């Protein structure tokens, strides 16, 4: 499989058409359609329960939508749902790590499993980017929630993907963390597509485009 050069500006196209998902009786995501182009950064906003996380999970290939489909292509090559994990960096609040392993071990495991050429180096680099290098050897169980959030970001960046899906990336972070996050987003927007799902103004202000989800969502039974 030919990989696009990890240089400046990989063309990314993300399109969803009438995408919706139901969790049993309740609607998780009302039908939504949009088209995004990268490189760049976009934000998905909307009230709690409207389906931002559901949308990101579908785009990451973790959730099979009930109706409709999502299309993602990198440098013109379409990426099916089962391949998304290779091309997408995903971070969300419900992403958890192995408590009994250290941050470095967790990322190293992720890098080895993904088949990266130098797993140790990749793990170290990712940790350094998010400012966790000093806590690399600490077990995840010992990390604070802010640090765990940084670890999630590191995990998403680990394999240097052309698409980043970040669900509430700034939650639990202190001011320093948010500055780091802004820096990361600023760098990544030049080489690929970044999609941030958020309610926080200072997070969606980082974006150039904004998709606002309306609809009843999980708060109201269908």
């Amino acid at each position, binding site marked *: *499989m030919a*990989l696009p050069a*990890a240089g400046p500006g990989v063309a990314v196209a993300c399109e969803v058409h009438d995408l919706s998902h139901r969790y049993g009786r309740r609607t998780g995501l009302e039908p939504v359609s949009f088209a995004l182009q990268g490189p760049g950064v976009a934000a998905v906003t909307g009230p709690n329960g409207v389906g931002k996380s559901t949308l990101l999970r579908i785009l*990451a290939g*973790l*959730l*099979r939508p009930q109706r409709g489909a999502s299309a993602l292509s990198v440098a013109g090559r379409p990426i099916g749902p*089962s*391949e998304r*994990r*290779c*091309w997408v960096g*995903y971070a*969300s609040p*419900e*992403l*958890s*790590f*192995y*408590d*009994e*392993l250290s941050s470095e*071990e*967790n990322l190293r*495991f*992720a890098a*080895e*499993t*993904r*088949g*990266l*050429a130098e797993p140790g180096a990749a793990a170290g680099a990712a940790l350094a980017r998010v400012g966790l290098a000093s806590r690399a050897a600490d077990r995840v169980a010992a990390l604070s929630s802010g640090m765990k959030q940084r670890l999630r970001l590191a*995990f998403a960046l680990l*394999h*240097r*993907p*052309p698409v980043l899906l970040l669900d509430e990336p700034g939650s639990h972070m202190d001011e320093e963390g948010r500055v780091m996050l802004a820096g990361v987003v600023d760098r990544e927007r030049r080489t690929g597509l970044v999609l941030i799902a958020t309610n926080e103004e200072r997070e969606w202000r980082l974006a150039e485009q904004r998709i606002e989800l309306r609809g009843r969502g999980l708060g109201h039974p269908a």
Partner: protein
Amino acid sequence: MPSNGSSSGAAVWAILRKECRSEWRTRYGLNAALLFAITTLTSVSFAVGRLTDRTDMLSALLWVVLLFAALASLSHAFVREVEGHTLTLLRLVASPTAIALGKLLFNLLFLAVIEAVTVPLYLALMGAPPPRWGAFLALLGLGSLALACATTLVGAVISQTRGRGALFAGVSLPLLLPILAASVSGTRAQWLGGAIGPEARLLAAYAAALLAVSLVLYDHVWED
């Protein structure tokens, strides 16, 4: 840099090592399983006593003890992922097939450790005649392989439901009965000096069928 699918072997190996490392760090899984196996064995030995020449009972009870040990312990490989919420992480770094094979190999290793402790103890406690080691180990190996194939898939399915231990045992049982029958029959045959060909072939065929079908099915096990 995105990875490609041809590193599946590396992925399976990485998952296996991670499982072993996690198990070693926490160890409650293996401890509990060994304790359970020994408890079952002790109960049987206490209740039945020595069975020196009853090869039919010896082979049956051996496999019942092993079956119980497997049912009590093999679901926890997936339950641990679900309870630790690490399944998302795993699904993002590896294909369903790689996850399945990694867990399968781990379960096989786990079973091997339990058997390494339980089987010699069983033979000694129950006063069993010395087995024909080649045939005996072949049956043990093939039976364990089939056992692991079936229980890994069922474990993956059950870990996503409300049910846990009892449901795992009940749902696995129909799949495990052919293994039980063939293993018991074969183990008895090797003690009586007969050939184990038919039983070994059955176990191998069954394990192969289970493995082939389950590898196709794993793509459908995790979709939400």
